């Protein structure tokens, strides 16, 4: 029972990080919730294996694996794409607005124009999962390249090149979307 209390104290503070990663990968809230719940159970069962390491990257590794298994099952399940996912994926203002409504508010958030958020969400959704995860892990969770490499189970060099490609994709997507929006505004 002592383990249980320790686990909850150490692991539950990272629930938002876990959920954010799961949602970035799965793009469906209900699926992300299930994945996080499942990940915590797995983590709790394997908790004794964690020795002296930091819990957050370890936990997010489990979350990522659970999510990838889920994505695989989805692919095996055929071309069944839920409405949420198709909206969240490429374009769909409703999904973006929904996401905006639940995004964590911060002082800076108010300063930045809402449309930029929407464009950003759309651009991230358009990235392949392998790019999405490195962006989240680096930009939001601020892991080092070494830690990201451990989480995604790839060499540091791969992390660097994926991040580089993900950022240039984001750049061009942002440019494209912003131009489109400017045209619409005129």
């Amino acid at each position: 029972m002592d383990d249980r209390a320790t686990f909850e104290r150490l692991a539950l503070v990272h629930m938002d990080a876990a959920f954010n990663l799961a949602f970035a990968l799965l793009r469906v809230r209900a699926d992300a919730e299930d994945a996080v719940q499942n990940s915590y159970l797995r983590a709790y069962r394997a908790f004794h294996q964690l020795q002296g390491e930091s819990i957050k990257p370890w936990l997010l590794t489990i979350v990522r694996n659970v999510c990838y298994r889920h994505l695989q099952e989805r692919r095996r399940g055929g071309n069944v794409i839920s409405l949420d996912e198709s909206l969240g994926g490429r374009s769909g203002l409703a999904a973006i607005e929904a996401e905006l409504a639940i995004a964590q508010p911060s002082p800076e958030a108010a300063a930045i124009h809402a449309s930029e958020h929407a464009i950003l969400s759309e651009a991230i959704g358009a990235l392949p999962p392998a790019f999405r995860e490195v962006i989240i892990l680096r930009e939001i969770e601020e892991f080092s390249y070494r830690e990201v490499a451990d989480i995604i189970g790839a060499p540091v060099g791969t992390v660097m090149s994926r991040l580089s490609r993900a950022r240039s994709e984001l750049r061009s997507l942002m440019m494209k979307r912003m131009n489109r929006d400017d045209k619409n505004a005129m």
Partner: protein
Amino acid sequence: MQCDRVQELLGAYRDGELSADERRAVLAHLDQCKACSALMATDDRIGQALKARGRTTAPPALAQRIRAELDRHDNRQLTTTATNRFMSGDSPFRVRHFAQRAAVLLAVSLLSAITTWQVLETRATNSHLERDIVSAHIRTLLQDTPVQIASSDQHTVQPWFAGRLDFAPQVRDLATAGFPLVGGRLDYVADRRVGTLVYKRRLHLINVFMWPEPSMADSTANATLRNGFNLLSWNRNGVAYRAVSDLNLDEMLRLSRELW
């Protein structure tokens, strides 16, 4: 350093993941290349926007769900350990073996005892029932009239039962088959109130007792002989039927088929 090489390293530069030499080289290039510094500025802006956007937060209920899941896991764990300890833990093999055999033996004896008891009980119940039915039949023979409602019309007899019984018995006049309906009455058999139809065959009187028995499956007539009377029992549509008479068995069976 060339622009394309700088652009490759730009992210790592921003993330502070370059060696000192590489960092100096990139910095020197950025100082004089407008295109690359513009890219860098865009990346900075995207980075800031991402941070400002923050995480998509989990619903508060998720923590509860996780705790409940861990509770379930803890409980399962507790049960398994307890069972394991009981089954294998400290008891030496011989003792465990003996205990298992004893348990099996006990279970078998118990089962056997229950079955025997059930068989005897069923027989006793059937026997009581048969005695009740035959007694009721004999009483009707001793009385002036065997019926409370005398009518050969099923549409008179059936409504008469309504309100007197907790089920609606099927009433049929079988005069065309040679079993004219005398009427109906209430009786008390096997600790319950039952509906009774009385039929005639020549000078023989036939009592048909009916009561609801919803748990019984439909069954065809089963004949027994008691005190010289033929007794038929069958179930249909959740109603138990018992027909009793001194009439010969063949004609009794014909009546039961007519009533089925």
